[in-house]
């Protein structure tokens, strides 16, 4: 007799049996074999924040070097590695992964699923990401850090002008993170499309899920561009292909097209999850459902589509045909419309709700104040004549830090504070949080506001030093002071995280009074997420029941990892599919794949010989281990 949850089986017994089924195995092997999205998500997030801290330290070194003109603190060669590492780490190893990390932790909870789709794949994704990050940073420590900018323009990154393996390390890191990001986007889309709680129609999904859905599709279309480009670059460097050799008719501009076809959507891949954070926080703390939900969804989708039509505005100075420029100017400005809609809807939600200004909400306010500046300076650089002056100056540095820190890091820190109780079961300190926010807000503006002027006064980006007497000295010094302020604020935030983790006030399942499903389970959630599959009847399920009993479904197996799959649009219960058991093979596959990738920096034969262990690991990964696995019930033919 198969045991299933239901009125007969609930409460503590159900918990014990479900926990036994869904927990990972004990021991180190078990720890490495986990396929629990919450564990993987936590590891992802912690790793991403470590990279954030490392890249932040690099930023401080750069700012110290630039505090005074003609400073000799670090050499040109090292500086070039440092700014490349800062950009690459922040973009590839922090910003994108951290958004994904939070998504894989929360999306299954938000949609009311027991687990994530493709659990082994997402574990594999984490190991690939970790491998790529380690490779890059070990290389950097060994003076093989890339020194070609995070954009790696050819031919500077090509075989002739970047001797050694520095550029290869960068390009191969791309391969790692690209595999990781693609794997995750498959998991996230699968989860959102098939594992939603019954009744959670697409138009009832939380906006963060919508944002991640759009972002995951963007990853699927954008990442192959950079993967292909970096493969071309590596093969140019390793086996002498001619893709980017201008003499042979190769095209350095091809690199730029492919890079920015990925690079521009990349900005939105980072920014859209942040808008999801803002929507979730605003909704909870305004105490009303988000204003203009359909427009918000449309804005997300529109941004996702438009993002692929803008890449050329990074290339105005290359001398492409002028008519094309006018098109890209118009397209770039158009993307301001969905952003404007979103900004309006958030403020309107506050306007018509009853906002409480707890720390997460402070970050939202800070986000609006700073991000709008970045957005408006973005409108400026979309104009060809203006861009030709501002391109590659500190004005642009200011612009995109306003967009990325104001637009993504602020909401991120806000959302960490917001979901911290869910993840750890403890509240973060409100007092430290307010200090941290205030200091960060002030220091951030102190750092980056002056850069608008340094840029307009002619200071180009990516210079390791500058001459005195250009009028840049004071502004640079101010920026440096601000940068240390940011460091203090981040340290304060981390102190808050650590003290709260050990000593924070215990939080109940729903400390903020949120309405989405993640607040329906315990904090932290059990390995199986939900004892019974919740049923959703509106956009605000928890507010609907208002503390009363949550409608749920019964009938899932408790001794097997069974998940309920629902239909795509209306989320009608459809199929019960088994979810994969924990397995060490994703880790093994990641290790052998990493060996293949790292080896292929040195010899093309690594791809040939390396693919054999990869194939073995993958076969082992998919080969059924038990006599009969769930879902393998014999079929009577």
């Amino acid at each position: 007799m198969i045991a299933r949850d239901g009125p007969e089986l609930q409460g503590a017994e159900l918990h014990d049996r479900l926990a036994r089924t869904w927990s990972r195995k004990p021991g180190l092997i078990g720890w490495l074999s986990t396929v629990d999205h919450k564990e993987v998500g936590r590891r992802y997030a912690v790793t991403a924040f470590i990279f954030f801290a490392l890249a932040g330290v690099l930023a401080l070194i750069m700012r110290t070097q630039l505090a005074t003109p003609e400073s000799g603190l670090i050499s040109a060669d090292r500086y070039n590695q440092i700014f490349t590492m800062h950009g690459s780490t922040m973009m590839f190893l922090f910003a994108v992964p951290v958004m994904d990390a939070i998504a894989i932790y929360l999306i299954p909870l938000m949609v009311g699923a027991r687990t994530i789709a493709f659990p082994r794949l997402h574990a594999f994704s984490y190991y690939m990401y970790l491998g790529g990050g380690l490779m890059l940073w070990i290389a950097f420590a060994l003076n093989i850090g890339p020194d070609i900018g995070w954009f790696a323009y050819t031919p500077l990154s090509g075989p002739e002008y970047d001797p050694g393996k520095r550029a290869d390390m960068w390009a191969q890191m791309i391969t790692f993170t690209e595999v990781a990001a693609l794997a995750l986007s498959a998991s996230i889309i699968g989860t959102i499309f098939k594992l939603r709680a019954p009744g959670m129609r697409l138009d009832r999904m939380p906006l963060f899920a919508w944002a991640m859905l759009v972002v995951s599709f963007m990853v699927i279309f954008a990442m192959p561009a950079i993967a292909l480009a970096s493969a071309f670059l590596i093969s140019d460097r390793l086996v002498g292909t001619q893709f980017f050799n201008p003499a042979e008719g190769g095209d350095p501009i091809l690199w730029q097209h492919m890079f920015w076809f990925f690079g521009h959507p990349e900005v939105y891949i980072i920014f859209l999850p942040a808008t999801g954070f803002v929507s979730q926080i605003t909704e909870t703390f305004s105490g009303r459902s988000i204003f203009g939900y359909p427009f918000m969804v449309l804005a997300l989708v529109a941004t996702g589509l438009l993002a692929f039509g803008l890449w050329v505005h990074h290339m105005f100075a290359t001398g492409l045909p002028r008519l094309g420029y006018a098109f890209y100017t118009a397209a770039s400005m158009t993307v301001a419309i969905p952003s404007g809609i979103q900004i309006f809807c958030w403020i309107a939600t506050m306007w018509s709700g009853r906002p409480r200004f707890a720390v997460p909400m402070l970050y939202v306010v800070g986000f609006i104040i700073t991000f709008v500046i970045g957005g408006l300076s973005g409108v400026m650089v979309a104009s060809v004549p203006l861009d030709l002056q501002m391109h590659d100056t500190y004005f642009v540095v200011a612009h995109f830090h306003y967009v990325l820190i104001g637009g993504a890091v602020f909401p991120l820190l806000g959302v960490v504070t917001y979901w911290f109780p869910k993840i750890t079961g403890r509240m973060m300190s409100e007092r430290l949080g307010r200090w941290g926010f205030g200091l960060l807000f002030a220091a951030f503006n102190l750092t980056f506001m002056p850069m608008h002027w340094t840029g307009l006064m002619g200071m180009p980006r990516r210079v390791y030093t500058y001459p005195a007497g250009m009028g840049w000295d004071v502004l640079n010094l101010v920026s440096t002071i601000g940068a240390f302020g940011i460091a203090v604020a981040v340290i304060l935030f981390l102190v808050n995280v650590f003290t709260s983790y050990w000593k924070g006030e215990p939080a109940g399942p729903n400390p903020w009074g949120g309405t989405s499903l993640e607040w329906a389970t315990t904090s932290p959630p059990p390995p199986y997420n939900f004892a019974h599959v919740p049923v959703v009847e509106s956009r605000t399920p928890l507010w609907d029941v208002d503390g009363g009993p949550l409608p749920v479904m019964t009938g899932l197996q408790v001794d097997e990892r069974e998940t309920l799959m629902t239909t795509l649009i209306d989320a009608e219960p459809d199929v019960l599919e088994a979810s994969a058991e924990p397995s060490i093979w994703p880790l093994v596959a990641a290790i052998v794949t990493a060996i293949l990738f790292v080896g292929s920096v040195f010899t093309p034969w690594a791809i040939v010989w390396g693919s054999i262990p990869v194939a073995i690991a993958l076969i082992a990964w998919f080969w059924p281990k038990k006599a009969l696995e769930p879902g393998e019930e014999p079929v009577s033919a």
Partner: protein
Amino acid sequence: MILGLALLSGCDREAREVRGKPLPETAVAAQTSTLFPGGGSAGPEDPRAEMYAENAYHISEGGRLYRQMNCVGCHANGGGGMGPALMDDQWRYGGRMDQIVASIDQGRPNGMPSWRGKLTPTQMWQLAAYVRTLSANVPKDAAPSRNDTMSNIYPRTLAEPEPPSASDPAGAKGPAR
């Protein structure tokens, strides 16, 4: 761990010592003969050699100089021309780093000019390091796969050559135009 090991092996390859090495830049006194009456050998190699030989930066600088200082005009991309081929395994005056530097520095009687006072010792060492890559004497991972110039290999397909008319007097034919 494997990652680390793979990378560690590359440390020397990656250093970028823009001033050359801090050893005194004295003339190289490498012997170039392989004949030692009564036995003997050419002695140990100049210690500077290993600092330049497999270093990617110096090889790259050497490659730049190889073109800019017109080595390419005589030795082509290794195949030779006015000067002998450098990509084969035959070294008239020795193929060791210090022997190559000595050849560049002193010149050789059958047409190799002496570059003493025209190139700096560091440049000569860099050139020697590059020259050794032409004959694949250097691990491939230190040498560039190609330059941003014409690809240095044969156009792969040409029209099938017709048999020479030596055996085919009837090959004579009227004007093709």
